[in-house]
């Protein structure tokens, strides 16, 4: 069937607007900060067979799993209980395709004149799911059974009526059911918006035409990606990241092979599954592979299932990136999956560097690992809980032509933003001591990685003067933002608990010093478990700087001068790492710089060894 190019373009454009309006509804009805600000959501439209037609700009690594949710519901439940007009299904089982249990999918079929014409599916990160720890990440979990309410597909609305027994059962199993209910309402409303607008579109252009356009949209994306892959050489590129946990070191290894117009991501060599929730199931890992692929190589294509067709993902069963049920996966999005995102980006960047035409698209790792903590406590008898948002600000990896963007976010979720300090100070009973850049955090290189931030908080106006923390962090040993093509890695993350710092008194007397080491008391690196902060204590979290690009000794000395002037790089490292000599007025001493750099190169040659040694 031939659709004229203008009608095609009108329908294609309209489908994207439908998703936008669906997201607007989602945010409007929810009104919650993680959804509205953090953009921790995904909305997608699917063809009747469950293939992704059009995906929005959210957390890209969700898209393949969301498609699996739809396909699974079609396969398993078409006959029993059946799929009817006006239905809605819940799905959050990581072993079917969800990332982890708090990420709840709501899947709605769209019918026109009794015929199934599309699906609308979305997910949000629910604030609680009834796991062994409150708040959505459960460090105490040892198996999926500790991770709260978990369904591989459950009809929650039938023919437009909410099923009371299903609804009540779910609310019975979660903490803060009113907030969870609100989020679910917003997801249902978003799908209703999408459904109505798709029906309007089909009514105007006919089911056959819209169906044909949606089929062709996928074929076009597939064709464009295959054509692009054929423009570059074949090869195999490797990347490896480590999970430095309290329970040992786990390795995620990736070999990315491009052959002709196909890409194969092979995770052979990855560590066996972990006893804690670091694991990530298979479909999210597929998401992790394509999440950097879409914005780095497919930026001018529609993001849909067509782009998945040239891609194969192999993940060894029983490994951290394809655990066997009932392995725990609660922290997947901050560990296993995140590492898959990172190695996929690293390997892809190396491939792009050798691609000729697309070299400029390569970039070092951004953000590294989401280092966030759950805080909860009471203020004026009200229970308050939140996760710290600063990690979403990330750090930009260096590019082949420019530095990484300071606090530039991440590649795989293009539109996030963090709440204000003032927002947080009324969401949880704390007061910030600072939220500021970390100088020298960017990975050195010809182009440096972007800086990241650190923050510190102390209990404030909280019951008993204390707050509770749930910690599930990593990244204190392995530098998550590795450099590219000779660039150095960005800074490590860390969580420090400071006790007996006499914070309140210190604030009263003289305010916060520039260096918190000046404060009294003990500061301990504490990455995992439950902790309590008292009035005299504070928590300090360091995020991770972006990876650098190219040998630091090749960086233009004028750029280094600018770095020192702006406080981005310290004078010490300007000399020690970049080999640039500046005078008292911070002018570049060209001769001395050349001599120093030559000396540093001689040192390298003197101390480097052959690989066989």
């Amino acid at each position: 069937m031939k659709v004229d190019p203008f009608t095609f373009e009108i329908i294609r454009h309209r489908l994207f607007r439908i998703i936008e309006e669906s997201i607007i509804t989602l945010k409007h009805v929810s009104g919650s900060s993680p959804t509205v600000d953090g953009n921790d959501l995904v909305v997608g439209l699917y063809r009747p067979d469950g293939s992704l037609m059009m995906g929005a700009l959210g957390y890209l690594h969700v898209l393949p799993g969301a498609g699996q949710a739809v396909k699974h519901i079609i396969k398993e439940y078409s006959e029993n209980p059946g799929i009817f007009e006006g239905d809605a299904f819940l799905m959050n089982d990581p072993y079917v395709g969800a990332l982890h249990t708090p990420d709840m999918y709501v899947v709605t079929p769209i019918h026109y004149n009794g015929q199934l014409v599309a699906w609308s599916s979305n997910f949000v990160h629910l604030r609680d799911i009834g796991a062994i720890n409150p708040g959505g990440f459960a460090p105490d979990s040892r198996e999926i059974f500790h991770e709260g309410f978990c369904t591989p597909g459950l009809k929650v609305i039938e023919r437009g009526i909410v099923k009371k027994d299903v609804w009540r059962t779910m609310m019975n199993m979660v903490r803060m059911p009113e907030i969870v209910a609100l989020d679910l309402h917003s997801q249902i409303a978003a799908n209703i918006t999408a459904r109505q607008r798709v029906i309007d579109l089909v009514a105007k252009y006919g089911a056959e035409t819209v169906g044909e356009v949606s089929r062709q949209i996928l074929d076009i994306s597939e064709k464009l990606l295959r054509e692009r892959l054929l423009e570059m050489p074949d090869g195999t590129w490797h990347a490896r990241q480590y999970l430095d946990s309290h329970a040992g070191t786990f390795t995620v290894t990736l070999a990315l092979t491009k052959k002709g117009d196909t890409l194969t991501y092979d995770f052979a060599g990855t560590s066996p599954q972990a006893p804690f929730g670091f694991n990530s199931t298979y479909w999210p890992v597929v998401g992790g592979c394509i999440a950097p692929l879409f914005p780095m190589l497919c930026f001018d294509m529609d993001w849909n299932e067509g782009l998945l067709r040239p891609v194969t993902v192999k993940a060894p069963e029983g490994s951290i990136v394809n655990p066997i049920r009932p392995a725990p996966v609660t922290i997947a999005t901050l560990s296993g999956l995140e590492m898959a995102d990172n190695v996929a980006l690293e390997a892809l960047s190396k491939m792009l560097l050798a691609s000729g035409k697309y070299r400029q698209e390569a970039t070092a790792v951004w953000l590294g690992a989401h280092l966030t903590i759950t805080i909860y406590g009471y203020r004026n008898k009200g229970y308050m809980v939140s996760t710290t948002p600063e990690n979403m600000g990330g750090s930009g990896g260096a590019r082949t032509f420019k530095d990484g963007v300071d606090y530039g976010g991440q590649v795989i979720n293009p539109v996030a933003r963090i709440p204000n300090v003032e927002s947080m100070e009324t969401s949880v009973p704390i007061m910030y001591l600072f939220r500021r850049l970390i100088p020298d955090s960017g990975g050195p290189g010809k182009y440096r990685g972007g800086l990241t931030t650190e923050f510190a908080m102390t209990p404030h106006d909280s019951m008993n003067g204390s707050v509770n923390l749930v910690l599930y962090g990593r990244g204190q040993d392995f530098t998550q933002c590795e450099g590219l093509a000779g660039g150095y890695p960005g800074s490590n993350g860390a969580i420090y608990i400071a006790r007996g710092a006499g914070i309140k008194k210190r604030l009263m007397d003289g305010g916060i010093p520039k260096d918190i080491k000046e404060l009294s008391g003990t500061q301990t690196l504490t990455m995992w478990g439950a902790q309590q902060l008292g009035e005299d204590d504070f928590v300090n979290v360091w995020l991770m700087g972006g990876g650098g690009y190219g040998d630091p000794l090749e960086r233009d000395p004028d750029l280094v001068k600018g770095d020192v002037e702006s406080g981005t790089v310290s004078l010490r490292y300007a000399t020690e790492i970049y080999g640039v000599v500046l005078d008292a007025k911070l002018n570049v001493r060209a001769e001395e710089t050349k001599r120093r750099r030559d000396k540093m190169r001689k040192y390298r040659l003197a101390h480097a060894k052959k690989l066989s040694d």
Partner: protein
Amino acid sequence: MVLGVAFVVGVDVGGTFTDSVLVDEDGEITFGKALSTPSNFSEGVLNAISDIAQTKKLGIEDLLSKTNLLLHCTTIAENAIITGDLAKAALITTRGFEDILYLQRGAYGRWSGLPEEMIKHPVMTDKPPSVIPRKLVYGVRERTDYKGEIVVPISDPEIRRLAKGFAREGVESVGVCFLWSFQNATNEKRVAKILHSLLPSVGVTLSHELAPFVGEYERVSSTALNARLAPTATTYLKELEVLFSKKGFKGTLLVMQAYGGLVSVKEASKKVVGLIESGPAAGVMGSQFIGGIIGTKNIIACDMGGTSFKVGVITNGTFDYATESQILRYHYNLPKIDIASIGAAGGSIIWIEPRTGLPKVGPDSAGSSPGPICYDLGGEEPTITDNNLILGYLDPEFFLGGRMKLNSEKTRQIFEKKVSRPLKMGTQEAASSVYKLVNSQMGALLHKVTVERGLDPRDYVLFSFGGAAAIHAVEFARELEVQKVIIPMTASVHGAFGAISSDVSHEHFTTRQMDFPPPMSEVNKIFGDLESAARDQLREEGFPEKRIRISKSVTLKFRLQVYALDTPIVSAGGIITEAEMEETGRRFAELYEQRHGKGSAYKDAGMQIVSFRVRAVGTITKPTYRKYEVVGDDPGSASIGQRDAVFGGKTVSTKFYKYDALKPGNILKGPAVILTPITTVVIPATEQARIDEYRNIVIDVGRN
């Protein structure tokens, strides 16, 4: 100041033109126009007024001496940001948070304001440079908490040291922004006091005065923008006053603010950020005024020109305020009429995607330079304007009232080469299809605007302004299922018209978080203070009691939900009662669900008051929107003949009319085109337009 006597003149500086409107004692309106002069805006302003003087056969000094009110919308602020004409400013902020301005809330600064195509391509995106560079940001010892308690006071010696440093470094302007300053401004005020005493000639912007709202990033960004803009904008306004005075003007110069009120030069100089987008704000005021006259309460006002497409919404005769504002990717948070921006306009480029052969509209734009091909200024890419020329909707000889001749030949040639031939279509067919595509896409973007605001377009009337909107307006209306399209008589100068249909207005706030229902004694105390400050201010400006109008509102939100809404308080007397407050709470919940959808209000979480607001209006006598005698339905005398134009893919012999000669009562059956000095009104075959008694063009969509 004398009000409501002699001439009132409004002037709006736009991207291409500076428009002017004069209203005399009888309510008679005269329009004027001149090219804008960005290198020295006041030149264009005077020229636009001279244009009116000429029409009225007066000398400019004569006209100005009879003018009592000069109402001005200026683009000086936006322009300064674009050209970089910004003062050297320093920022004083809470120690530990010096980087907040630079951080731009994480990735937010990197992607906001970019088209979707760029957002999908993060490696190629960057944040705009920080408004004030880090080396001019100074964190000082101080801290206020969320309740407004001073946790750490100011250290005077520290501020004095800074001040001396500023003097040495030649700092021209200072911004001060502390955390929670709007809850308790003690520390900011202390700093201001010290700075004023040591640096009397340096302007100081205080965040609690400028933008007393929660959210330190937007507040510090507003403060920084204001500090950098203040010297340029203040100088411009002062010089304008002097210039007018020299030319015989003895009246009052008032300046439009983005929240839709006029303020004195003194007031405007304190909050120059409020000047940003004052032109579009005036446009909305004008739509509101016209709507009030003709009895239309729900309006979607579309202003599409060559480079921008702005949409304002009026519901029940009022409009909403924006909660997040941007100027060129910089964020700020000042009271501002909510105006949406559609990412396509007349200059959007039509192109064929080489790999797929699909036709696309934008996001690239030819802008005003090099502009559409037909402008003959070097543009080589077909634009929406070029497409409209090919369709026969534009008169190449009469474009912009004859000021510009269009090159049809070149346009057709390039369009054929770049669009119709790659598509293997005839030129007419291709242009017609492009028109459909453009209308569908822009219609969908307009629809999104209505969804974002929770309104049903079927209850609205579409007003059309700007050089390009009326060519597409009926099609937009069909997309949205809007019932009526109106091109107001004042469309060609609607910014200036909006200025003269506005009042002097001031916003007074106190941001204070309180559980709802609140203690009424405290509420009434807060409002009492706000109201007396408001009345004092208007009295000082010369308004008698009978011209002062006070309205009160509270901004409410549900706990756990981020969206806050300004909710009017209806109160019988000066003191607000408990019952009236309860009613306000009910009204808020209703408005919330109207805006955000049924079931969206999380009532069980409880409500909170976020801020208290008093809007103080000093009324100015408005122009009379004159009613004309209805003459008859035959538009024959305005006809300039039949021409070929494309409708529904076919060339159709179309009647062309000149607007100036049309009379109230005239009915024009489509297909027809009305030529006005700044735009063309396209009436499709199945529609008809009529001229109402105000000389507005009205199209009742789908009635035939």
